[in-house]
């Protein structure tokens, strides 16, 4: 242990694992949920279909449920004996429970309402008249979406991704319920901080990881601000 120097700031291997794992989990939670997030946001913004209110409610459910409940539902569905979990394990050999991939799923579900909301608002802000104009110029629905709607929605997509990422970095209840808190495998930053606070002499570790969390969150905000500004300048709003 260093006495007066900054040596106490150095992360232990286990702490590094938690940081790496959190970044990995958050990155994949965000990337993997993005296509579905855009699709659902578009559906909610532009299409009227029977059961729309139900879909909307389902998407927003993780926002209002206690995270532990969401985690437990995931465990019931995606656990080894759950209907979806058993199917995935038998058919594809994919096991989510108590793996980092399960943590990514939990984080994706928890961040999904935030992501969909940001993208949906951005899509609703795009003037449908512009899309109609693209149609008269020969662009079909998909082409119009790709070259007109999507670029105009880009700032909203970036905002949605950052929100989802930040939510994933902080997600605790659903993750710990679904995949537990196994060091090196499912112990993310919040779980590691929680563990430190539960053992005597863990204050230094908790503080170290807290500083890392703050730094990552701040970095994400800066990057999102930068990207959003660039995208808006391109779109011509700013």
């Amino acid at each position, binding site marked *: 242990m260093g006495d007066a120097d900054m040596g106490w700031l150095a992360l232990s291997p286990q702490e590094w694992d938690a940081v790496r794992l959190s970044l990995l989990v958050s990155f994949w939670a965000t990337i993997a949920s993005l296509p579905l997030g855009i699709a659902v946001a578009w559906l909610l913004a532009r299409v009227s279909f029977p059961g729309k209110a139900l879909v909307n409610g389902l998407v927003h459910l993780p926002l209002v449920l206690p995270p532990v409940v969401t985690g437990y539902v995931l465990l019931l569905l995606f656990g080894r004996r759950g209907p979806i979990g058993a199917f995935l394990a038998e058919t594809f050999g994919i096991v989510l429970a108590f793996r980092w991939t399960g943590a990514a799923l939990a984080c994706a579900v928890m961040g999904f309402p935030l992501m969909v909301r940001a993208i949906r608002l951005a899509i609703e802000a795009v003037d449908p008249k512009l899309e*109609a104009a693209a149609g008269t110029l020969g662009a*079909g629905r998909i082409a119009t979406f790709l070259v007109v709607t999507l670029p105009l929605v880009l700032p909203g997509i970036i905002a949605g991704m950052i929100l989802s990422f930040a939510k994933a970095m902080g997600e605790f209840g659903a993750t710990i319920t679904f995949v537990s808190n196994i060091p090196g495998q499912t112990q993310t930053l919040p779980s590691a901080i929680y563990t430190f606070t539960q053992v005597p002499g863990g204050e230094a570790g908790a503080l170290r990881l807290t500083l890392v969390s703050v730094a990552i969150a701040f970095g994400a905000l800066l990057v999102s601000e930068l990207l959003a500004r660039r995208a808006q300048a*391109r779109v*011509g709003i700013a």
Partner: protein
Amino acid sequence: MRQDGAPTLEIALRHRLGAFDLDLAFASDAGVTALFGPSGSGKTTVVDAIAGLVRPQAGLVRIGGETLTDTEAGVLVPPHRRRIGLVFQDARLFPHLSVRTNLLFGRWFAPRSAPRVALEPVVALLGIEHLLKRRPRGLSGGERQRVAIGRALLSAPRLLVMDEPLASLDDARKQEILPYLERLRDEARVPIVYVSHSRSEVARLAGTVVLLREGRIVGRGTPREILARGEASETAPARSAARARRLGRWSPGQALNTTRPASERS
């Protein structure tokens, strides 16, 4: 002029929306046909029906003999396959694309069979060379509208439909654009349907005027004939309503035949 004998545009529509009842049929030729009438006379519904943006309750739209809408036969070609260039009152340029990319937008999606319209002559015709690298947000209303016209032209349309293209501009801007529209009429070989409520624009641009009032066609002729009538056409809606009653069993084809002027039948 088209040589195949089919009129450029044939349209017959019947569309009821609340208290508003649209019931009309007309055909246009290769020049500029103005659809002239006060706001609320149904002009925009006609434009939307031509472009395929609305499905009329009953109707027929044919361009150069090709059927684009036929409610009886269940034909409704989607807007992006119609090759009809639309110029809107609000230019509707894509804000995230440069003027140049806006202009070339239609070319990306034009079918291979469509003639390829070169950029340079269109840009020269509309006097927008100096704008190519700019973004739409920095343009004046008049510049925007000229770019919008160029964008529609470059999509190689079979018909150019201009829906009140000058209505949102001030007088100075209108005077700035009108010469370009005259050049467009004289130099571009595209038939034009020009929708407007402005007497002066119609007088200056149109070869044929179709006078629209309360969803009915109440007159058709040269600008001189139609515009000189002034308010003489007030009695016409009643006549038209009588005709609508007569056509109890309405069919678009029949409606077209009954109203197509003799000059186009021969």
